[in-house]
């Protein structure tokens, strides 16, 4: 293994929300939210659409400041976006190298780049531009970019929701594999219940706007998890129930 790949330093990440509330010109979006993300943890936020999941990520990343409450963060934070997060004027290599901007040593930088390309199975695509790639490949490049160098925390804003179903399934497995290789603290926003059940160490179900955490539970089963694993199905049932989407609730 090369230098940058494995971080021997213990997780330097810290991410906490304390009594955070937020509104957009009078419209209350988040109410009194408390959240402590443990280092190395994979937290998934699910909730009804428009409930403020993305706002929550923006608060965590610092793009938005909360109206009240405290956000504390420590460590290098990077975000994976739903789509269009890559710079279209840069090649695959150049996009990934953005994540290695702090690496001064040129040989190390190139080694790391090669390793990342190998990790996402995109050797041979170094010189391709994003518009020449499929949706899944683009998201893999985004993953490589956020994993590059010494990032600590990954914020993921529905990173796979613009992909077709089968690619989405494959990307979930891919993400698990990448994180096994390069552990990071992850906060993952999705409206996809399957995704939450397959990926999460901890699921937070958000209520309708103004959102607050209405249910929180851990999924202990080891990863990678099959879609049909008991633990996954059980977790899905819990989430559906909480969102009021189970069959009984419909009756």
């Amino acid at each position, binding site marked *: 293994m090369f230098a940058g790949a494995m971080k021997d330093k213990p997780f330097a990440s810290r991410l906490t929300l304390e009594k955070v509330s937020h509104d957009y010109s009078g419209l209350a979006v988040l109410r009194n939210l408390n959240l402590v993300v443990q280092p190395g943890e994979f937290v998934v936020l699910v909730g009804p659409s428009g409930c403020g999941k993305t706002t929550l990520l923006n608060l965590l990343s610092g793009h938005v400041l909360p109206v009240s409450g405290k956000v504390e963060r420590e460590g290098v934070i990077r975000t994976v976006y739903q789509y269009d*997060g890559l710079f279209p004027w840069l090649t695959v290599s150049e996009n990934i190298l953005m994540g290695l901007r702090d690496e001064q040593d040129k040989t190390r930088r190139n080694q790391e780049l090669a390793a990342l390309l190998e990790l996402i199975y995109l050797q041979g695509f170094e010189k391709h531009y994003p518009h020449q790639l499929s949706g899944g490949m683009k998201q893999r490049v985004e993953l490589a970019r956020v994993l590059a160098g010494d990032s600590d925390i990954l914020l993921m804003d529905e990173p796979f929701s613009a992909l077709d179903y089968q690619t989405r399934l494959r990307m979930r497995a891919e993400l698990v594999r990448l994180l096994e290789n390069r552990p990071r603290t992850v906060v993952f926003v999705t409206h996809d219940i399957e995704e939450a059940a397959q990926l999460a160490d901890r699921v937070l179900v958000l209520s309708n706007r103004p959102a607050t955490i209405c249910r929180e539970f851990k999924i202990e089963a080891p990863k990678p998890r099959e879609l049909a694993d008991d633990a996954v199905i059980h977790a899905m049932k819990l989430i559906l129930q909480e969102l009021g989407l189970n069959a009984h609730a419909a009756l």
Partner: protein
Amino acid sequence: MKENQPNSLLKAVAPQKRNGSAALLLPAGVVVALFLLWWAVSYFNLFPAYSLPSPLAVAKSFKEEFTAGRMVNDIIASLWRVVVGFVLSAVLGIPLGLWLGQHLAGRQAFVPVLNFFRFLSPLAWIPFAILWFHIGDKPAIFLIFMATFFPLVLATMSAVSTIPKIYFRVAKDYHYKGSELLNKVTLPAVLPQVITALRVSYGIAWVVIVAAEMVGCQDGLGYGIWEARNGLRLDSAVCYMIIIGVLGMAMDRLLAQLSKLPNVRWGYER
């Protein structure tokens, strides 16, 4: 993985290439047809010779103009004026457009004035051009500048304001700031649109130069047409018209090469 075959993913360029011979033959056919029409009209005297010169007369005139060296001199003079005026307005206009695109107060202050001048025909400046710059290259360069500067500023500005916000978020995630943000994010993000704007304003410049040289100059392609008119030499005027059209197309082709740069292709392909 199946999707990992590099070539299968490149956007298909093959159909266009297969069409290559047609892409050459079809326009050539139209040109030949037009030429034959012209020849027939003058051969059968459908128009009197003094109002439509024959192809032969034009060919003779071509030879004359080139052997006398006047034509070459006029071409160089016109190209020089256009290039200087055009480069001047690009060098000043693009940065100004970038700045305006990022500053709301600047836009609010300047856009009405810029629009006013954009709609003011550059030819309206002719009296002032001659009064201020007398005769020679300067008034023509001034008019080219006035014709291209305002559309370039406005096009660059509006390109900046349409950059997706996500690029700036990503830039912030990776700590791009100040001049680096401008050179590595803002500028490349608008480059495809700026190249298109350059082509459009070059088109304006080439149209304006002919009119500009009809007054205030003593050489150049526009002056050549003016001279031909004064001497009732329509054959010579047609020579100049052909040269103006061909050179305009050639320069546009040259500028179009910019849009083939690999790092701007994305702007034209999605």
